[in-house]
């Protein structure tokens, strides 16, 4: 079957997207900071009427048109919008690709008859886009290259076999060539596609880069060109719209239960688990309220998710009532099927739920677990890792006696190699009954550590008459005494 491609070009995509959201009745342009100044990024036809064009600095443009209204451009949002349009375009054919910043390719091979033919298909696209407030230029041909040329330079349809006659008279930039190449060819007196086509191929190949012949062949169908369709994004979101607004907690939870069941079924088929969820309530006054939930482990157990949502939902202000609820799994992670185990089971699950509950209050990154580190430096012998992405250590390595609380070394007065008999620490006078030591710890020379610049440490465990049991150290290389820990 003959391949048929539609090229869809939105010449004012960015400006029209912005105007769709908030229309204005004035010359309008979008500006973007580029090459050290604010420049026009896109503009409406009225602004063009004042002689403005893209790339001009904003100051310059204002001097031409003092009444110009501008908003900052958002290219990332434009790209998202284009993706939405690509999704919309799948109503005409299943194979839609994105073309640069502002275009789409539709491979309508074999699907034009569904809209009653090629002409009605283009009319339908044009009418629907016009209703949405978007200017579109359309080209239909046997190859993407020709369709692109038509949409950008001469709107219309090229019937099979007529490709060259339709694009022959078009300028060279219709072949998607770089500006420099076009200028170079024009200097030789070659201004249109047909002139280029009539030249002997060998001379072109010798004088210009291969792009020229490559693009020409693509347009004429001598070289293949693929359209890559967008991957289908799996969206894990469900919503429920209610005929009458609801406001009681029980009703809202019942609606949320139906949503979670539905979402979890979907996660189940995809073998995924939700890691972060968002429950959005739209009230009748169009106000949105959202409850977010971050989970300690990926899961898809509806009942448990619902129980965790309870605290957040009870804090929602229902106002005059809620008429739409949407549940979205914002972050999903793979979660395969798991063999049930009698020994773990409920207790583990409830601990994970507790981590989630605490995490929603103080942040999941603040729920931590100890993990041993293989280091002889006391303050480096462990690390803290978030509990949500770690498992408990089965066996903690045994060490020498260490204090229950370690703190940054606090200097005390003392001389000699034995611990001082009396000293003051934290405002209290202490006298030593017994001292045990020394235990010598050398700094790790392969690591930079500012607190170990004084070199070797001789550690002593001491007990005082006042009841404290402390961990002191002496630095023989720079004589001084410090307290570093409390045994309690």
């Amino acid at each position: 079957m003959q391949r048929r491609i539609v090229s869809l070009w939105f010449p004012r995509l960015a400006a029209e997207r912005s105007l769709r959201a908030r229309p204005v009745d004035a010359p309008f342009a979008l500006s973007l900071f580029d090459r050290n100044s604010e420049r026009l990024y896109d503009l409406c036809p009225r602004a063009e009427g004042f002689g403005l064009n893209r790339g001009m600095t904003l100051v310059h443009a204002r001097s031409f048109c003092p009444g110009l209204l501008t908003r900052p451009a958002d290219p990332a949002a434009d790209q998202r919008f284009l993706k939405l349009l690509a999704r919309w375009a799948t109503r005409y054919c299943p194979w839609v690709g994105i073309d640069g910043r502002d275009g789409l390719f539709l491979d309508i091979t074999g699907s034009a008859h569904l809209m009653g033919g090629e002409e009605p298909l283009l009319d339908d696209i044009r009418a629907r886009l016009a209703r949405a407030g978007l200017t579109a230029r359309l080209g239909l041909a046997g190859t993407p290259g020709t369709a692109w040329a038509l949409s950008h330079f001469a709107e219309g349809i090229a019937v099979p076999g007529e490709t060259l006659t339709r694009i022959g008279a078009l300028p060279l930039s219709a072949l998607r060539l770089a500006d420099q190449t076009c200028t170079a060819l024009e200097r030789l007196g070659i201004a249109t596609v047909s002139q280029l086509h009539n030249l002997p191929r060998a001379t072109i190949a010798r004088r210009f880069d291969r792009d020229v012949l490559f693009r020409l062949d693509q347009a004429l169908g001598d070289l293949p060109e693929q359209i890559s369709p967008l991957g289908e994004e799996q969206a894990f979101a469900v919503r429920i719209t209610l005929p009458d607004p609801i406001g009681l907690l029980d009703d809202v939870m019942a609606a949320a239960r139906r949503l979670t069941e539905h979402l979890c079924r979907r996660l189940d088929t995809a073998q995924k688990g939700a890691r972060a969820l968002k429950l959005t309530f739209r009230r009748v006054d169009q106000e949105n309220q959202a409850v977010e939930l971050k989970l300690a482990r990926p899961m898809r157990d509806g009942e448990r998710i619902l129980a965790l949502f309870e605290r957040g939902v009870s804090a929602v202000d229902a106002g005059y009532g809620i008429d739409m609820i949407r549940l979205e799994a914002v972050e999903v992670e793979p979660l395969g099927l798991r063999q049930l185990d009698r020994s773990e089971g409920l207790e583990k699950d409830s601990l994970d739920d507790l981590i989630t509950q605490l995490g929603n209050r103080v942040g999941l990154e603040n729920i931590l677990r100890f993990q041993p580190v293989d280091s002889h430096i006391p303050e480096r012998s462990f690390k803290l890792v978030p509990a949500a992405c770690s498992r408990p250590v089965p066996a903690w390595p045994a060490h020498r006696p260490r204090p229950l609380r370690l703190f940054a070394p606090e200097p005390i007065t003392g001389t000699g190699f034995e611990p001082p008999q009396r000293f003051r620490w934290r405002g209290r006078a202490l006298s030593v009954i017994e001292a045990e030591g020394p235990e010598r710890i050398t700094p790790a020379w392969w690591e930079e550590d500012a607190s170990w610049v004084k070199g070797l440490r001789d550690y002593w465990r001491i007990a005082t008459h006042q009841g404290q049991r402390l961990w002191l150290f002496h630095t023989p290389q720079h004589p001084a005494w410090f307290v570093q820990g409390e045994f309690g």
Partner: protein
Amino acid sequence: MSLTFSSVYPLKPARAHEVCGDGALVFAAIAAGTARGAVVWISESWRPTVNPEGLAPYCDPGRLLLTRADSQLNVLASAETALRSGAAGLVVAEVSGTIGLTEGRRLQLAAEAGGTTAVLLIPEGAGSNAAETRWRCAGATAPAGGPHDPRQNGHDSTRWRWSLIKNKIGTLSEWVVRWDAASHRVIVVSEAGG
């Protein structure tokens, strides 16, 4: 009638207990070591964490779930959540200010609802009236070389003086205790201020 240690220790389950004094941390560590299941240890983020190597003789540090809250309010709220869920065997909360009667009572009710024991480390004199028991812990000094010198028996020399300073269901007393690592329990060295 004098109060026996075994009637108040191990701590009454599903209740909130308060500890103060220099040895409070050891009290909490021992309580964590003798509790079943996971231990949720809640403290404010400015405070240095407990040292897992120092904790290891009393309690496996792998069982600890540390929660770092930004304020005392969140410490108490997290403690209530953890107690009510019943997923942990023990909840330890390090509190830096006073606990009001409302907060204390809420924690007590949460502990009863979830069946979880709570140990609150409080500053001296900052407890609430709702606590089941309150203890003051300090290191005890044994005269070296005396008849009680533990090293003569080959034990760890460390002793603590644990005073019961509030008891909802009985009288007050104090004991000198030591930790027996081999049997993993607290052993009373001498009764009533001995």
